[in-house]
């Protein structure tokens, strides 16, 4: 069994001591109720629910998996009851629109809860996660009538949601989709086609499933400009709002996967299913992106969530597992051996996990607050600024956090040795569950292209400035504080290299797009390390100021982790820098036939 306690101490440190949650978020219009006191109460109860209800079904869900029989998907034992309790407690609507029954709490809180849910039971989290994304898309783009019909039930969770994009022959390049939508009058369409890899496409936990489906109208232009978005419910909605006749959509089979086995991954067949157009014809791609951008941040958090559980479990194990003696001589002579945590290499493993996790959490919440500001701030300029930062950081969070999620869960397994490789302790499940996050919601290579190809040049580099300027300002101020030198100096070095690489890619990419493509993944990682360095520097500063306080132990550990990050992890970014500067030649030189 893995060990997990929601890291509320760290979360509170980030929200209140580092990121000024109260000043930044609690004052926004619509967030007046979300005081520190309320946030604490919500997080305490959320943590309790995740630790006591979600976590115990994590391994049994993995062992049992989903079953498919006669078109029906059965989720593992206990999931249905858990889902009902989850919805009844109101967690489904945490940050969703109060006009339709949501709680309207800040997105920042949603980020935190998503992490807790993913740490406890990521497979379960997929179901409300998909519903959440579908609700966001409908709220932004649906007609009033559509919102009234679907949102209250979906926000409650009584009805769940999906996003149906991928088809057998296309995933990344959605311009190629073949699913058709024939208008039949009265605003209705007949949807026909096959969608694959549809998470939560079919299951036994909700009374209706509302699919958001990408399809092409008969007069659609070629490519991604010809995609429209449709609502296709599993059961047609009756006049009184309740689910009625079965619609022409059915699950054909479910996938047998490496991980997230309790999450149903379905082939969905649409056979003249009744659907309703969302917004204008041919505008589906942009609408799907509002859903996907949120989903990409969520997937990044999945990596962090799993990595946190891996760290906590590995740390507990390393303190208990007696094996061999410390290189410095026996540390616990009265016991048959020392715990393995005495070894520098084991500590390196644990600290790598911890530094990546705590850095990622800080970055995630920094961006989460920007999501709230982008949505609710009364000042247009502030909203735009925050929105730019979110857009810039989205591919970085998605890609870096999920790569780190896999690396950290893998290190966690290493700390357990053979006991990590066998199923009993749950460590190998974390690795398997983490792996998909690097692939879905835009494979990480695509995220890097998004960063380099779209985000860098957008509005003459305006997005980039939303990161570079505050970091530069911070460094300039930090240089005047001698106690921060050990942190600010490597941050400054990292930032200047990132700027150098940015310039290089800008120049080379203009001449030859393949140069930008060749640099993309290393550039994203260099960017991520710099962003983490910025937040680690700020965390170190906040902890230095609190060393005399009554939480000295927490802040001492924070500082020790910060030092590890700057001295042992950040140097890795040099490798990425060198790789970028090597250019495309080493990648493109070999003839295709030689592969």
């Amino acid at each position, binding site marked *: 069994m893995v060990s997990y*306690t929601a890291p509320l101490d760290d979360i509170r440190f980030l929200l209140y001591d580092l990121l000024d949650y109260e000043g930044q978020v609690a004052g926004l219009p619509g967030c007046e*109720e979300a*005081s520190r*006191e*309320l946030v*604490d*109460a*919500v997080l*305490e*109860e959320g943590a*309790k*629910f995740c630790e006591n*209800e979600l976590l115990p079904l994590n391994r049994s869900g993995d062992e049992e998996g989903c079953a498919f029989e006669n078109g029906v998907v059965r989720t593992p034992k206990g999931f249905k009851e858990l889902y009902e*309790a989850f919805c*009844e*407690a*109101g*967690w489904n*609507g*945490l940050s969703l629109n109060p006009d339709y029954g949501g*709680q309207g*709490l800040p997105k920042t809180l949603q980020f935190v809860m998503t992490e807790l849910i993913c740490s406890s039971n990521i497979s379960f989290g997929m179901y409300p996660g998909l519903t959440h994304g579908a609700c966001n898309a409908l709220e932004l783009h649906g007609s009033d009538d559509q919102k009234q019909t679907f949102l209250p039930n979906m926000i409650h969770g009584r009805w769940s949601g999906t996003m149906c994009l991928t088809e057998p022959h296309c995933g990344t390049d959605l311009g190629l989709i073949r699913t058709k939508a024939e208008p039949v009058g009265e605003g209705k369409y007949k949807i026909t086609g096959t969608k694959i890899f549809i998470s939560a496409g079919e299951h036994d936990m909700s009374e209706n499933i509302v699919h958001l489906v990408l399809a092409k109208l008969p007069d659609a232009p070629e490519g991604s400009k010809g995609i429209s978005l449709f609502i296709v419910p599993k059961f047609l909605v009756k006049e009184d709002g309740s689910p009625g006749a079965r619609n022409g959509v059915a699950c054909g089979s479910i996938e047998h996967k490496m991980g997230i086995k309790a999450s149903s991954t379905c082939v969905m067949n649409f056979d003249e299913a009744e659907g309703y157009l969302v917004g204008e014809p041919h505008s589906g791609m942009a609408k799907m992106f509002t859903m996907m951008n949120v989903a990409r941040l969520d997937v990044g958090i999945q990596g962090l969530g799993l990595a946190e559980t891996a760290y906590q479990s590995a740390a507990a194990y390393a303190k208990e597992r007696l094996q061999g003696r410390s290189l410095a001589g026996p540390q616990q002579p009265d016991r048959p051996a020392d715990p393995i945590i005495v070894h520098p290499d084991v500590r390196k493993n644990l600290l790598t996990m911890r530094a990546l996790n705590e850095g990622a959490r800080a970055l995630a919440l920094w961006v989460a607050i920007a999501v709230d500001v982008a949505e609710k701030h009364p000042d247009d300029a502030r909203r735009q600024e925050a929105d730019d930062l979110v857009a810039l950081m989205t591919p970085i969070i998605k890609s870096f956090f999920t790569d780190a999620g896999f690396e950290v869960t893998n290190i966690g397994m290493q700390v357990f040795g053979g006991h990590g490789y066998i199923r009993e302790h749950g460590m190998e499940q974390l690795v398997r569950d983490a792996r998909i996050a690097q692939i879905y919601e835009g494979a990480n290579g695509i995220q890097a292209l998004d960063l380099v190809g779209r985000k860098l040049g957008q509005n003459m580099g305006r997005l980039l400035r939303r990161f570079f300027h505050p970091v530069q300002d911070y460094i300039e101020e930090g240089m005047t504080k001698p106690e921060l030198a050990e942190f600010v100096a490597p941050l400054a070095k990292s930032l200047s290299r990132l700027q150098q690489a940015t310039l290089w890619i800008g120049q080379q990419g203009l001449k030859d797009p393949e140069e930008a493509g060749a640099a993309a993944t290393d550039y994203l990682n260099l960017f991520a390390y710099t962003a983490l360095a910025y937040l680690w520097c700020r965390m170190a500063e906040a902890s230095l100021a609190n060393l005399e306080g*009554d*939480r000295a132990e*927490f802040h001492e550990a924070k500082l020790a982790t910060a030092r590890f990050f700057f001295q042992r992890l950040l140097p890795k970014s040099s490798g990425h820098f060198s790789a970028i500067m090597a250019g495309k030649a080493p990648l493109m030189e070999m003839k295709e036939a030689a592969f």
Partner: protein
Amino acid sequence: MKVLVPIKRVIDANVKVRVKADNTGVETANVKMAMNPFCEIAVEEAVRLKEAGTASEVIVVSAGAAQAQETLRTGLAMGADRGILIQCDSDPEPLAVAKLLKAVVEKEGPELVILGKQAVDNDNNQTGQMLAALLGWPQGTFISKVEKTDGSFAITREVDGGLEKLEIKAPAVVTTDLRLNEPRYASLPNIMKAKKKPIDTMTPADLGVDVSPRLTVVSVTEPPARKAGVKVASVAELVDKLRNEAKVI
């Protein structure tokens, strides 16, 4: 029927408790605090009585530091209607709490007071009994079931070797055992509503109660570490050890 539920803020049951370096007590600074689990059961039972239409109002009350307000909010989020905080400078002893509660009972006039049978911090198991005695009310301790009948309560008590069914006259004091119910999670909407529910704050002086301690803590220490066991070669050796070393037979 009004129901009064006294609750206590204690160190969270999942936290490993540490003794202070100077042996004056246990470390409570920066330790996660929560509602005493038996008190949660008491709140749950009161809320169920309200949901069943038996109770008209559920009042949670706590005597302790200002932070006990958070614990009261938890009770309100579970479904209690309002809270009373009796703010004390130090943790009051059971007798002082019972006296404070007596004053609150006289003010509020509940027909039923439900307490946890004990708090997991000091395991005193005294407050409910003392309160009943001070009030001159019937008491039902360690209950696993309570039902309102005409002018009285039918209760089931958990006693050594079985269950004892009694009928006690209203108004009464009962204390909860583990199996009375399983407390609910507070729902998100209720956590938000709890913020708006009223909490009255008062002091022991307002209630005319002297809470100065009557006990002196001499020293608090960790229990001695358990020693490793030994394997005996024969039954005879075991009997010999039990008789001569352990002196238990």
